[in-house]
């Protein structure tokens, strides 16, 4: 434990990476480390980026990070990709678009899979942000595909959240969950060299108006960028600074962080319950038997659930 702690404090990449793995895979040991870290660490400013697949999140992240690195800001990137429901595997491809930044010694990129119900990823993302903060990364970017509730939850950990879309993603915008509209602090229409940019901008603005009304302290701006040509990045960074300033006025930041901690506390309790109770039930092999009984109507699922938890929990 001391080895991890020391390595993280020294900014040793290998130890940081191993600590993240530990936290992801081994709750007991991981918690021990995180307890020690938490009391001595202020969590760095977190920027969340979400949007549909192929909207350019990684490229945009790369562009923003490039700018921070120029001024020597140590940046951590947590790139989250979905786990396949069928195989349990995941393809984590976000490094591809950031590869030319990987060489900078001030950036640490970690890819994570959402894992299944029993993976407890939501808590691990926060934990990873905590570890990176302790290691001296002043700014942290969490990038995730904005398709499901799980991803919205992840992005909710961020202080400033960017929602990325493209001009031709009309249908996807229509189906953006209300939660995502309310989560975004800044909206970006990327690939703005394609047709219908203005239409998309308007559509988002209208949806925002519906979600927020007109009387709001922070009206999310809608920006346009062409990430792979570095266009619009300055304005985007400027807006992020503005939002940071807004958040740091009065008690807003404190309130925001309190909400994140509340969320994390729930995530952690869920992780404990899943691993200690549901996980044990799944491992016990009792499920199959019960399901057969339920299917044959010898048992109802309500009694079965109550009993499984009672019998298998600790």
């Amino acid at each position, binding site marked *: 434990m001391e080895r991890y702690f020391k390595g993280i404090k020294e900014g040793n990449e290998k130890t940081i990476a191993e600590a993240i793995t530990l936290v992801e895979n081994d709750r007991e040991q991981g918690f021990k480390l995180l307890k020690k870290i938490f009391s001595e660490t202020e969590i760095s400013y977190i920027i969340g980026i979400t949007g549909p697949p192929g909207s350019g999140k990684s490229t945009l992240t790369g562009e923003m990070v490039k700018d921070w690195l120029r001024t020597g800001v140590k940046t951590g990137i947590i790139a989250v990709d979905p786990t*396949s429901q069928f195989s349990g595997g995941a393809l984590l491809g976000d490094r591809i678009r950031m590869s030319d930044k990987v060489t900078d010694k001030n950036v640490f990129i970690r890819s994570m899979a959402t894992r299944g119900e029993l993976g407890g990823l939501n808590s691990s993302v926060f934990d990873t942000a905590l570890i990176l903060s302790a290691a001296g990364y002043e700014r942290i970017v969490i990038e995730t595909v904005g398709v499901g509730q799980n991803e919205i939850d992840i992005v909710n950990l961020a202080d400033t959240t960017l929602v990325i879309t493209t001009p031709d993603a009309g249908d996807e915008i229509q189906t953006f969950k209300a939660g995502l509209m309310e989560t975004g602090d800044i909206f970006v229409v990327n690939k703005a060299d394609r047709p219908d940019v203005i239409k998309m901008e308007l559509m988002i603005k209208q949806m925002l108006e519906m979600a927020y009304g007109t009387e709001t302290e922070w009206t999310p701006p809608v920006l346009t960028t062409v990430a792979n040509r570095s266009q619009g990045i300055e304005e985007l960074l400027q807006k992020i600074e503005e939002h940071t300033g807004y958040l740091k006025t009065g008690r807003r930041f404190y309130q925001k962080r309190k909400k994140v901690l509340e969320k994390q506390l729930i995530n952690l309790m869920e992780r404990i319950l899943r691993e200690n109770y549901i996980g044990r039930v799944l491992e016990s092999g009792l499920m199959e038997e019960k399901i057969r009984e339920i299917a044959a109507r010898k048992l109802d699922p309500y009694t079965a659930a109550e009993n499984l938890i009672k019998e298998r929990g600790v």
Partner: protein
Amino acid sequence: MVKNKIKVLIAKPGLDGHDRGAKVIARGLKEAGMEVVYTGLRQTPAQIVRGAIQEDVDVIGLSILSGAHEHLFPEIIELLQKEGVDNLLVIAGGIIPEEDHEKLHDIGIAGIFTPGTPIREIVDFIEKNV
């Protein structure tokens, strides 16, 4: 405790624009339940090693069709050793002539899989050796 997933980094070292094989492997390993980080084309040994460290992977899979394996692979292995990474399985695939296999095995490439290898074989090899 949750069963640990095998995490693999698939990389294409050097100047080589052909990544279909690497992508097929990446997808195949994902279908086998592994977490696969694909890093894209034209990676330097330093980038690959740093990526493997940051991602804390169990396996590095190198795909190469350019013929530069004799030059690039030893560099990667040396860098790994220099960084103190010793618990990692390094495998390779692509166009690697039979006569080079032994030499590569000797420097620490655990498995070499040339075109036509069923993905199952690679999956089994990884699962057995990690």
